[in-house]
């Protein structure tokens, strides 16, 4: 692995970066790319295998193991992070395609001084919004994104089609449930997750 100036050292062995040779002996096109991700406010420049998902880069290269790999296929939401402020499944995003974007992970939700939890984190604790906690980082990032979407007037399938555009949507329990349906909790902590979100929006 060639480390570029300012590059984060990989935590796991990586494929060598540099000229590859194709099957026909021709030099193959680069299968790695140099990218910069603005992760929780800090620019991180590194060379990634084009195949790496954002989730794997966060977890294995940047040491941010908050976002979890549940299914690796977009089906569970445990890998949810915010990309350019919007919630997204990091397991389905090629890291190379996120070059230059702002990424917020669960590690970046609390106040920068590390002293104060994000209100949602506090509410999840107060309400027991989890059992094993595996889905929790994804639930938290998803809830942060979801509250912003409702505030911006984005409808859900529980929203009255007549609700005026661009006006905040009130987050009833039914709204919270359907808007967070992309986050599966195998422990079934849903009632307390809904209660925690309700506490925060009040």
């Amino acid at each position, binding site marked *: 692995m060639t480390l570029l100036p300012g590059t984060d050292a990989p935590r796991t062995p990586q494929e060598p970066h540099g000229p*590859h040779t194709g099957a026909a002996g021709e030099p*193959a*096109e*680069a*299968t790695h*790319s140099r990218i910069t991700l603005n992760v929780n406010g800090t620019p991180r420049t590194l060379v990634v*295998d*084009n*195949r790496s*998902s954002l989730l794997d880069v966060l977890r294995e290269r940047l040491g941010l193991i908050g976002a979890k790999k549940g299914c*690796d*296929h*977009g089906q569970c*939401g445990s890998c*949810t992070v915010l*990309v350019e402020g*919007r*919630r*997204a*499944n990091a397991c*389905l*995003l*090629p890291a*190379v*395609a996120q*070059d230059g974007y702002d990424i917020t992970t669960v590690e970046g939700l609390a106040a920068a001084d590390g002293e104060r939890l994000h209100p949602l984190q506090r509410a999840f604790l107060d309400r027991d919004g989890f059992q094993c906690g595996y889905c929790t980082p994804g639930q938290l990032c*998803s809830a942060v*994104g*979801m509250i912003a*979407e409702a505030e*911006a*007037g*984005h*409808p*859900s*399938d529980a*929203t009255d*089609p007549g609700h005026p*555009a*661009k006006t905040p949507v009130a987050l009833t329990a039914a709204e919270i*449930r*359907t*808007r*967070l*349906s*992309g*986050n599966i909790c195998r422990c079934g902590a849903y009632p307390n997750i809904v209660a925690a979100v309700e506490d925060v929006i009040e």
Partner: protein
Amino acid sequence: MKPYAYVRAATLDEATAAYAGHSGAHYLGGGTNLVDLMKLGVTAPDALVDISRLPLDGIELRPDGALRIGATARNSDIAAHPVVRDRWPVLSQALLAGASGQLRNIATAGGNLLQRTRCPFFQDTAKPCNKRRPGSGCAAREGSHRDHAVLGHSPHCIATHPSDMAVALAALDATVELHGTGGERSVPAAEFHRLPGDRPEQDTVLRPGELITAIVLPPHSAGLPSAYRKARDRASYAFALASVAALVEVQDGLVRRSALAFGALAHRPWRAHRAEEALRGVEPTRAAVERAVDAELASAEPLRDNAYKVPLARNLACEVLTRLAGPR
């Protein structure tokens, strides 16, 4: 996963040129279907041409009253767009019925149209599948196929198209705008996807290297009562077992025009021309609506495990059509 090159296109021409310059290239929209299929080994590109940053994400109302939705507009932004919600509500509802909040934030309009079937045998490279490997057979025909097609299937393939959005587009007479090395063309959304016939590997009429640039909603389907309804195994975050998109215009107590499309019943969104024909000019009583829907579904050919889809689709269609035609 096979190593691949990555090219980020800044212009349309850069994108089509990069595609032409790489054998085994695929366009990358949001990646929510393509990356999934690459992990499964179903698709193995040598190069990804990233089109997600092309300036194609605009949603504009044209002077003639048509709405042009750029191909890289995100599913969540289309669903939330004030003009879509106001003039073509069925499209917003169909999008919101699909996937999850975080997936809709990533998924693009073009990628949604081109997502591939969720047939488990298509996704399993150890199984025969004529869509994945032409000529290898169809494991679904004898295997478990409760989610599969009841209309328009062939001996070669019984897969369904999974998109909710595409069903609404078919009902709305939308068109799909394409850009290829041979120039621009546009195709009706209802004819964009194919029936499987003996070429199930071809989902759509898209030519190699052609890019979807936009989806256009025509003025004649704007502002009419329209709705989407979807039946699925759980209340949210599941693909349709059957769905309907409908639009009804009633004048002086008679149906002036209606449009009905079924989802999850066929290899493409199923535009119900026969039902529409039967409703034209009649009073939209429950009985008349049922007759019209039955006329359409008479051509259904359910398989061993999926006969339930026919009454399910019938009930969805009858409910939505009568609701839309009813007193407002």
